[in-house]
């Protein structure tokens, strides 16, 4: 059975949502990982959303420098898939596992709504069950989601196919460069995304005509683990 670790920092608040989705919808073996726990034998790590350490300094900045992240960096070096969602994405860029930075939204306001993203690379542990350019409906909820990156790194990331999801250019919700919604590292095993796949994983949550195809982010991950 696929074994998933979900990090819990003080102030994480989507940990239970991610845990429940993997457990009840996807029937995985899921465990919470707290600072005092040992981390071993996980097939993948999810860093869920929330306001770790109250977003003091900058979103994700303090969690990024916690002892738990040292262990997660080691796992990343060993090729284990790491997925950061929302605040998890912020932690990954703050810790240097992913390039670029996340700034306050261009509107300077928190924004929560359903949005379309487009899959721009379907050859990753997190998107392998999608078609290329497939449109996925998925909720966002963040105040600091404007992805920025310097020109040179951007060119490298683009050439390496590290840009995994983009917002529809007509409704970029936060001013992200090149409409980037998700990006991965060079090796492709660490990905950060601003939207929340766990919030589109159940038809009950998509009554207003939304789809639940965002769950394929998690299903892709399970598929990748099972294949390897």
């Amino acid at each position, binding site marked *: 059975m696929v074994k998933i670790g979900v990090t819990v920092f003080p102030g994480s608040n989507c940990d239970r949502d991610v845990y429940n989705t993997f457990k009840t919808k996807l029937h995985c073996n899921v465990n919470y990982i707290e600072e005092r726990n040992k981390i071993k034998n996980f097939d993948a790590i999810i860093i869920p959303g929330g306001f770790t350490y109250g977003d003091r300094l900058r979103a994700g900045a303090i969690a990024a420098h916690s002892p738990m992240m040292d262990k997660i960096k080691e796992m990343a070096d060993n090729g284990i898939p790491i997925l950061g969602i929302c605040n998890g994405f912020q932690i990954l860029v703050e810790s240097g596992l992913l390039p670029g930075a996340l700034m306050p939204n261009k509107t300077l306001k928190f924004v929560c709504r359903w949005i379309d993203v487009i899959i721009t690379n379907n050859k990753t542990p997190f998107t392998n069950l999608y078609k290329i350019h497939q449109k996925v409906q998925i909720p966002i909820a963040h105040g600091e989601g404007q992805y920025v990156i310097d020109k040179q790194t951007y060119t490298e990331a683009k050439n390496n196919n590290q840009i995994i999801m983009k917002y529809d250019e007509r409704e970029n919700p936060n001013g992200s460069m090149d409409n980037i919604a998700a990006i991965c590292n060079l090796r492709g095993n660490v990905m950060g995304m601003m939207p*929340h796949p766990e919030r589109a994983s159940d038809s009950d949550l998509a009554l207003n005509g939304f789809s639940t195809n965002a769950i394929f982010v998690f299903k892709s991950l399970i598929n990748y683990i099972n294949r390897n």
Partner: protein
Amino acid sequence: MIILNKFEFEYLKERLNREPNELEQNIVNAEWSEHCSYKSSKIHIRTLPTDGDRIIKGPGFDAGVLDVGDGYVITVHIESHNHPSAVEPYGGAATGVGGVLRDILSMGTRPIALLNALRFGNVDSKNISLNKKNQWLLKNVVKGIADYGNCMGVPTVGGEVEFDSSFDNYCLVDVASIGHGKLNNLVKNKVKEDDIIILAGNSTGKDGINGASFASSNLEEENRSAVQIPDPFLEKILQECALEGIEKKCVKAMKDLGGGGLSCCLSETADNLKKGFEIELSNIHLKQKDMTDTEIMISESQERMLIITSKKKKTKLFDLFEKYGIRYSVIGKVNDNKNLLIRKNGQVIATMPAKLVANAPLLDRSSRKPHYLDNIGKLFKEPRIPKDFNRLILSMISNPNICSKKWIYQQFDHEVGIRTVLKPGFSDSSALKLDNGKYVTFNLDGNSKHCYLDPYQGTLGCLAESVRNTICVGATPIGIVDHLQFGNPENEQVFWTFLESIRAIRDFCSFMKIPVVGGKVSLYNETKSGGIKPTPVIGAIGLIDDKSLIKLPTFDIDEGIFIIGMTFDELGGSEYYEYCHKIIGGTVPKVNLGNQKKIVETVKKMVRANLVSAIHDCSKGGLIVSLMEISIQSNLGFVVDMDKIPTSCTRLDHTLFSESHDRFIISTKHHEKVKDFLVQKKIPSAEIGLVTGDKKCKLKLNNKIVIDLQLSEIIKNHECSLLDILEKNVKETT
């Protein structure tokens, strides 16, 4: 700041059989403030019906508790933070959210939803500087709520906003929360001698000194030091710690610290538990050293919880505090003598019976029908019928009271927790999935314009609307919470409006057999320019057993459109009179309890029998606004024949904009079945039109098209109005 009056002082002295010392007076002063003691309202709110099959705990506790079956409960509470928000909107609103979440936590349940009902002065009037002040209040209140709720990971799933000039330079910020948990995890609140009293969370500081007293008088000076400081991160870890403590059975009793600080928390808890407390003040962890005993006792520093545990379990609980990094102090122990005894470094500095402190002498204030009601009646004149109805409708749809509140609710994380089935802006009530597979619904409704002209009928209207909103999404109402907000109760004419409102809740809830599970009273909502309009806010809690019953206000092409209920010439306090014509007066919509029950029952049966596709109630803005809202939601047009609408109105504008109660717009594929059903139940109703695919909204009168509007234009006016008003200003100032 002593506000104990002569009578209260003598009452206290007589009961103590001695002169109270200064600290004792301060403790009592905090607890006997209007805010904490409900001294003006208690004898009246006691008369509300509170019995019901599902009620485990009714009003009088931190939150009401309702049984939702299968070993699960929901808890519900409503609070306001009006005075603080009026002077410091960000901190006031944020700490309002923090307070209501701790109330839910105190019962032993996890908060799963927040709602808010917000009221501001007009943001689009001709007075630019007043607009700016009101907009400043709105923006910061919204940000305060967003920052606190979002950080806590509790979704803000719905609410309502009303603009009215009686709230100029002021605001009403009501926040409500729903909690969910297992029945057997409810905090038992049973303690015995030598149990240990712990104060956990934030350090006690000089913030929020005299907050309760500040909220118990008119807002004449802007006392910012009485406003508390929010720290949602601390509350989040405190919440997780407390919930784990409950799960591990380390919590025997728990209460949050809110208005009145330790004074209220300790006296009320001791009195509720029928025990005595011995407290050592020097043990309390403080923010600053130079605090007086009184300051420590009345500080309203946020994010603090009082927890009582046994000697046996204390180590386990302390381990949890360590794990979560929560500061705590052992501040005393329980005894059997029913006194609240306070020591400082071993010296007794206050000792009074807890019951005496916790129960202020109640008042039976006098009341008199306000003069303004007669004056308005005398001055009232019907407006002229406007010529351009297309323009009129577009103007109504962009009215801040009617238009989309997207600018506000998109700043709230309404999805966290993965329970939000019906989301803000999409339906008449919010709905959340529960752990037993059922769904709880919640909505808040208020209408100060109706209540001003007729507090009794206005309040009945709020109740009727909240029940309609519950029925519309397919739920059965199981409880009501009320939040009663009025001006100065010492003014007989204000107090009359308060009593009328209470009478309405009593009549409605008794007749409909829906219990009141909680409530709150907020008085002295007055500024230099006078009192607010009477503003009861009603929250209805509903339950849906099965997902197939959930209904949305979305049409399908070629469906028949019906109106259920009669449209009367009731335009008093309507958006049409007040927004379009600036007229205050006229006949307020009336609720006939018998009729409304019959209609609501019938609609419920139709929903259950799956005869209905879309359903939406008619309220603010009248039937035309309801039609437009479903049309916007469905992205489809309609053609409606005005001649078919059952109405007593003789004017087209009145038919369109009357806010008569007990009306629903539905759409259906089963035209004949619906018609037969309604005829058989003898409900006034008619098939009035058809859903069309051409994205045009058309109304016919005497077989002529009198209104013809592009849906795209309606959507633009509806969606962008508030955004334009609020963002335009930003551009001007930058």
